[in-house]
């Protein structure tokens, strides 16, 4: 489970702070020492960690503990805010040239970072946005790299341009531009060979391409599992070639992705996409705040709370309604569907459960949750709810055998599964009743799990 031990670590630290009445300098220091270790274990670069700890310490020591927060929560709040500061607070998009002008994107990175796969993924993504993409194979060194790009291009049903491996990369790129103009492509994605950032000749190959072709977006692909090296790699690529954005690949692994923080800190370039799987569709938008939260470990819970708080400000009534529903367990299928969709957006139910304070630590092990919930099941559940009428969704008590039968037919599942789901739903409702208790910050009385805000 991603970030699990980091979560546990931070939770232990902040638990030790919870009992104390005020935030003292010593408190902050002890807490931050543990935060430091945890971040190092997450592969955040040592120097970045040091700097980060310093800035948090400066902010935290001497600051008043806000009303309604205990010292531990206060430290978390500051750590969290500084993490988000570091990661940048906005989600970035690729920038395109106006009108019909061709936007040129160049991929670069170390060997095995995932450039070729990512290039094809981007092409597929932009194709969905109505762009006409041309993939260009400039990796003339690795055996079969061009073939790989060619196969991926045909899978994505986008055009591909290559000239074999006996031409210079910059020549191929230039020829590709002519080809693109002739054939009306408005996006050109140049895939380059993997290279070490200290290999000056290979780095020159990239600058050569940039001299020959007007590259609008140079994207550095970095393996999310990269350790302390991430800083050197990103910094050197940025200095020697100049990068405009970063793509973090293999984020579907269990690496904690500390590299993201390091890269952002040294280059100040946005991370645009994250690679979330081997399928060519698995490329997602990067959310800096979410990532920061994820590295911190209490991430998605913080997000949930933040959202709840924001909502509270904007639409107090509606939110009170949600809270009331949650508290009283008056929670219908419509809400269930809604929360399911939200959870899906945040990376699945299991990852959220795993990140909830207490859940990760308590009896429920991440693996257990994972085995109970798989994505296929979730989509069947979705189908079941969608097969209900509005009335049924609001009032589960309406569900008699005949209605259930119809729902089962509509969802294409066995009636037993419908029954099982309804039973499970009742159980979830009970669980939801406990949730307000966990939201100690606003409303719950004596929550077992206090939240940071």
């Amino acid at each position, binding site marked *: 489970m991603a970030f699990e031990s980091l979560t546990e670590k931070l939770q232990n630290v902040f638990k030790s702070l919870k009992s104390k009445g005020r935030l003292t300098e010593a408190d902050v220091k002890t807490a931050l020492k543990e935060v430091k*270790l945890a971040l*190092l*274990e*997450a*592969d955040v*670069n*040592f120097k970045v960690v040091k700097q980060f700890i310093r800035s948090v310490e400066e902010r935290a020591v001497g600051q008043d503990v806000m009303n309604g927060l205990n010292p531990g929560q206060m430290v978390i709040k500051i750590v969290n805010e500084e993490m988000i500061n570091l990661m940048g607070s906005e989600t970035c998009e690729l920038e395109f040239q106006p009108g019909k002008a061709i936007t040129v994107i160049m991929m670069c990175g*170390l*060997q*095995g*970072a*995932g450039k070729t796969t990512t290039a094809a993924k981007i092409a597929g993504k932009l194709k969905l946005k109505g762009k006409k993409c041309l993939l260009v194979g400039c990796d003339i*060194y*690795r*055996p*079969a*790299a061009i*073939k*790989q*790009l*060619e*196969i*991926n291009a045909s*899978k994505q049903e986008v055009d591909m341009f290559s000239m074999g*491996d006996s031409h210079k990369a910059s020549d191929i790129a230039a020829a590709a531009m002519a080809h693109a103009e002739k054939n009306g492509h408005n996006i050109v994605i140049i895939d380059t060979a993997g290279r*070490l*950032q*200290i*290999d*000056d*000749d*290979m780095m020159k190959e990239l600058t050569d391409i940039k001299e020959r072709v007007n590259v609008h977006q140079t994207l550095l692909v970095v*393996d999310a*599992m*990269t*350790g*302390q*090296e*991430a800083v*050197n*790699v990103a910094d050197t690529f940025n200095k020697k070639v100049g990068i405009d954005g970063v793509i973090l*690949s*293999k984020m*579907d*692994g*269990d*690496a*904690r992705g*500390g*590299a993201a923080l390091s890269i952002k800190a040294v280059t100040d370039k946005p991370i645009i996409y994250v690679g979330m799987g*081997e399928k060519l569709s698995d490329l997602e938008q990067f959310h800096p705040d979410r990532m920061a939260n994820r590295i911190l470990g209490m991430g998605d819970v913080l997000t949930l709370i933040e959202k709840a708080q924001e909502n509270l400000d904007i639409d107090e009534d509606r939110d009170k309604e949600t809270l009331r529903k949650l508290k009283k367990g008056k929670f219908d299928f419509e809400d269930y569907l809604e929360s399911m969709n939200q959870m899906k957006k945040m990376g699945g139910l299991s990852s959220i459960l795993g990140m909830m304070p207490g859940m990760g630590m308590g009896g429920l092990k991440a693996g257990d949750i994972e085995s109970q919930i798989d994505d296929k099941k979730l989509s069947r559940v979705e189908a079941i709810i969608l097969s209900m009428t509005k009335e049924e969704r609001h009032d589960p008590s309406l569900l008699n055998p005949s209605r259930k039968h119809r729902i089962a037919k509509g969802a294409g599942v066995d009636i037993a599964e419908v029954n099982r789901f309804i039973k499970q739903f009742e159980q979830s409702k009970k669980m939801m009743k406990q949730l307000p208790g966990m939201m100690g910050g606003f409303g719950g009385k004596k929550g077992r799990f206090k939240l940071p805000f």
Partner: protein
Amino acid sequence: MEENLINEEINEEEITEEEVKEEEIKEEDIKEEKKGGFFRRLVKGLTKTRDSIVGGFEDLFTASEIDEDFYDEIEEILIMSDAGMEASEEIIEELKERVKQRHVKKTDECRELLKEVMTESLMKNPPDYPYEEKRSVILVVGVNGAGKTTTVGKLALKLKDQGKKTMIVAADTFRAAAVEQLNVWADRAGVDFIKCNEGQDPASVVYDAMQAAKARNTDAVICDTAGRLHNKKNLMNELEKITRIINREHPDAYVETLLVLDGATGQNAISQAREFLNASKVTGVVITKLDGTAKGGIAFAIQNSLSIPVKYIGVGEAIDDLQKFDAKDFVDALFDKSTEEEDVNA
């Protein structure tokens, strides 16, 4: 072969003036040195690694008093090499212990002690190479982009040069053009090649390969597998199945499972090693791409937390850039030149 030559040329050119000078000096030393080829390559490959680790260490061993700051700085350098918190702390503790035992007072006397401790921590599980003696199947596993296919190619040449009848099996049926890539390596190494179709069940490819190996009386079968993230349950199950089939279909063969780790990987390497160990009994680790600035400190982390020996390191893209791991050389190469010379002459 042509591509190989191009790579060589590029490698040659990339050496900066400074390095050339170093190279000359080294070359002289190494001429009298039997293991020269390896050491030179390692030193060359690890030059950047060395620069960054030693760059830090050099300032440390000034004849000042040993204090907590000194240890903190060593720890910092170790962590910066991806050795990880735990392994770094263990090394420091051991160093402190020995400093006390041997009544060392000044930091400059610590250098050899630290090298000693670092070497020993890498030698907890010394590497062995049974497949050089026995009829074997070597399964190469790892996450995506670690360098498995390249390692397979390099290893095939190594074994073939030892006079073994070697066969490469392409069981990466998932990634586009993986088979073609491996085919190029098989041609370069000049060994037998069993291929599959994209999308074919890799286990069935391995099954066929085992029959072929028995029929052709092959000494060493090297199976390349698709890159898989270690937290993907179904892919790890697939690996288990492949392992099962090898054991069942070729029971006389010694089975070696090599886990390939990217030298730039951080602490996630431990998680990788653990999961791959579970799925297919990993018997050795290969750390690749150590010709960059990556320090390969995960070697320490792996040794510290799991009992798998590091067997090879990859220090370049050329076909003979796969080297047997030698803890002493590895640590020596991380330290400065004067020390190396002493060691080489000793």
